[in-house]
């Protein structure tokens, strides 16, 4: 039995790939599946700086069929720049993908406005990424889960993992609020809680939780390509037509034991609206109908930790450091390989080991300025 701790996209995708190959899996989630960052993110699927990028791009077009439920994935991204600085930075990140053989085209204002009538005279141009995409976070999380169950895997919701029982250098059981589950292997994919769970069996996996916010408007007429953003915002037009955008200041927090902090909103939602209205003056009449927040897992260098430990040697630690939704089809497949064969055969994960933080000072959060403010 392979026990997966955490029912976010990382854990669920891992369970999907493992159960697809016939491995018995149990996913243990303390609350509702996809309830945390995995169901609350911007839905972006475009990560050219990741070694999993190629696989991310290869897998998304197949996911609906493999999962048997729609993820609302759509291809491509369009980037809008309001000044030369923005355009410059966009080209910098574009080159990360074009260097890997993906295509991108410059757009002038007229072309931008043809793709998106709300773009105003302030836009100086943009870029059409013939790669990347976006999907619906909650629907994707749920689709993984139903596919796992269809493939014979088991999912326990409202069950909290409290620790691992070790014997002879291996994890032999996962301790939960509903009793022990015997295991042959464990995947720790508990998002921001990964750190404190690892600490309980003597491992230091540095992760700091932060809160971020998104706002969403009423539906507007559908664009041909909804994955359009810029001006310091990430987001998309949903397939229903809503404009859902996030970005801006995050807040560093502390966990509340096993509980995830309340993902409240602040007046930052108005700042999101302001930037959206700057980017899309033609949509400034659209009414904002909702906002939400999510709690994000962050490692000190902003990069994932995907690592099979040596002691206990049947535990894989998997935390994505704030960019885990889009990569999830690929990260789950990579993690499944780490569990089943000890190494990933389609991507170079050598830089994503926990050992890179071996000399991390104990007060790293304070040094980074990442500590939660006193209450």
């Amino acid at each position: 039995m392979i026990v997966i701790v955490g029912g976010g996209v990382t854990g669920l995708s891992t369970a999907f790939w493992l159960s697809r190959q016939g491995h018995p899996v149990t996913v243990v989630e303390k609350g509702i599946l996809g309830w945390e960052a995995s169901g609350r993110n911007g839905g972006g699927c475009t990560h050219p700086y990741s070694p999993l990028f190629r696989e991310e791009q290869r897998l998304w077009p197949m996911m609906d069929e493999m999962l048997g439920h729609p993820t609302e994935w759509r291809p491509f991204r369009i980037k809008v720049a309001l000044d030369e600085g923005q355009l410059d930075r966009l080209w910098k990140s574009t080159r990360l993908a074009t260097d890997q053989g993906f295509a991108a085209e410059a757009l002038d204002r007229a072309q931008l406005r043809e793709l998106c009538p709300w773009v105003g005279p302030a836009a100086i141009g943009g870029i059409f990424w013939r790669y990347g995409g976006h999907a619906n976070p909650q629907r994707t999380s749920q689709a993984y889960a139903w596919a796992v169950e269809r493939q014979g895997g088991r999912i326990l919701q409202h069950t909290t993992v409290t620790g691992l029982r070790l014997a002879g250098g291996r994890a032999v059981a996962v301790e939960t609020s509903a009793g022990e589950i015997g295991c042959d292997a464990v995947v720790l994919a508990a998002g921001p809680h990964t750190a404190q769970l690892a600490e309980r069996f003597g491992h230091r996996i540095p992760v700091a939780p932060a809160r971020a916010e998104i706002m969403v408007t009423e539906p507007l007429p559908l664009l041909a390509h909804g994955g359009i953003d810029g001006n310091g915002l990430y987001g998309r037009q949903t397939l229903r037509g809503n404009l859902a955008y996030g970005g801006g200041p995050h807040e560093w927090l502390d966990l509340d034991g096993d509980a995830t902090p309340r993902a409240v909103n602040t007046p930052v939602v108005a700042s999101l609206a302001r930037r959206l209205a700057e980017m899309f003056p033609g949509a400034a009449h659209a009414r904002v109908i909702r906002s939400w927040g999510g709690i994000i897992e962050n490692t000190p260098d902003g990069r994932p930790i995907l690592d099979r430990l040596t002691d206990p040697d049947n535990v894989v630690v998997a935390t994505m450091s704030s960019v885990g939704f889009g990569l999830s089809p690929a990260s789950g497949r990579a993690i499944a390989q780490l569990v089943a064969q000890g190494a990933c055969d389609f991507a170079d994960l050598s830089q994503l080991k926990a050992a890179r933080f071996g000399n991390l000072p104990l007060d790293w959060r304070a040094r980074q300025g990442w500590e939660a403010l006193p209450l």
Partner: protein
Amino acid sequence: MSSDPTSLAGKEFPLRGRFATVVVGAGEAGITAALAAAEAGQSVLLVDEHPLDPGLMGMDIPWLFGGRLDAAVQNQARMEERIVAARPGLEAAMSAGVEVALGTSAWGGFLRSASSRALAGPMLGLADRRSAWLVGFERIVVATGARDVVVPLPGWTLPGVMGARGFDAALRLYGAFAGQRIAVLGGGVLAAGVAAAARAAGIGIAAEICAAAPLRIEGAVEVEGIAWQEGGAWRQAACDTVVMAIDTVPNLELPDLLGCPIRWDPARGGFVPEAMPGVQVVGDAAGTAPMARAGWMAAALAEPHAVVCACEEVLAGDLRALRPPRYLGAEGPEAGLAALGPLNQDQVKRLTRAGMGACQGRRCRDAVHALVSAERVAPHASHRAPLRPLPLSVLAALEEDPALRANWTGWFGIAAQWLPHWEPVPEHPEFIGGRLTAEDAGK
């Protein structure tokens, strides 16, 4: 060590005034609370969203107006006069020194908490038709009254179907009710009050249907009549308006947003808020009459074609099947709702879109809750800012700390995150991943 410049730490939210007490809702309970605070020598702000932006009335916010308001509501100044006339306590409050802001909606409440440590103190987000702003407060009194409950009866989405609160506001607050002959649904004091008010105003009453029965609201493009079963036979009556006076619930959006505990208490209408330090809830917002909708809801929801969420066109059958929205052209899981385990209305919302529409779920919230509570009472579905649908341009007008703008970043601003992860992280003397320069942070 200095804090992360791209975080919320050290950012300010400029306030347009600070008050010892703010009172939201200028009904009887709110005016009484505001007067008491002013008489105790406090600085008091009393806000009320009426007169509403006619656009919001068209979206049935905050009550179910069902399009039965005449053109008078377009004239804001006239509406303000009518409101002051309808609520004489307002003048007394003003003379007692209460600052009164009509046509001003409270769209957000923000407290310092374990999840929002960077906020300096309690703030209320306010907006009129042009712009949004924040005020600071020490104590807030929520007096937002009750909200209409919509039972998804056949034909309820036709213009001309309104709620008891919507009817009362159209008739007595705005003096702008546009109907002539009404049918009243409901068997309690609420329905009796609607009938009495209609009679007093010389409005014809076509039918009073007191108990849940097979029923149809009829009309091609708007309400033309109602048909219902009584003693085994169908009866019919012509009318231009149907007033659903079946039930109301406490309007607890703001307490929920502020983090007040929310409890299920059918003896007080359904979900009710509890007070919190600095947050007081008074009047109907704290609890209404005992819940009276169960029988009506059960009968209406038994019909698979009942339109539960009109904004997103979600039928009762779609909810039970957990069917994705129609534009996806897909089926739900074989087990339907049972595929989720213990039901949670917010989760069901994200999958079916019921309650996700432009009315912010006001019209379907109680029906969806009844449907997902068939086996056990589901938890309360969350409310989120903005509590009123506000145009981007209105929210965009909120004054912003220049430091927030100067340090704006799309995502965390960690330099190493944006470099190839297959290469080692460049050494950075101060911060492990390095920080993007302000110039590069906009990504």
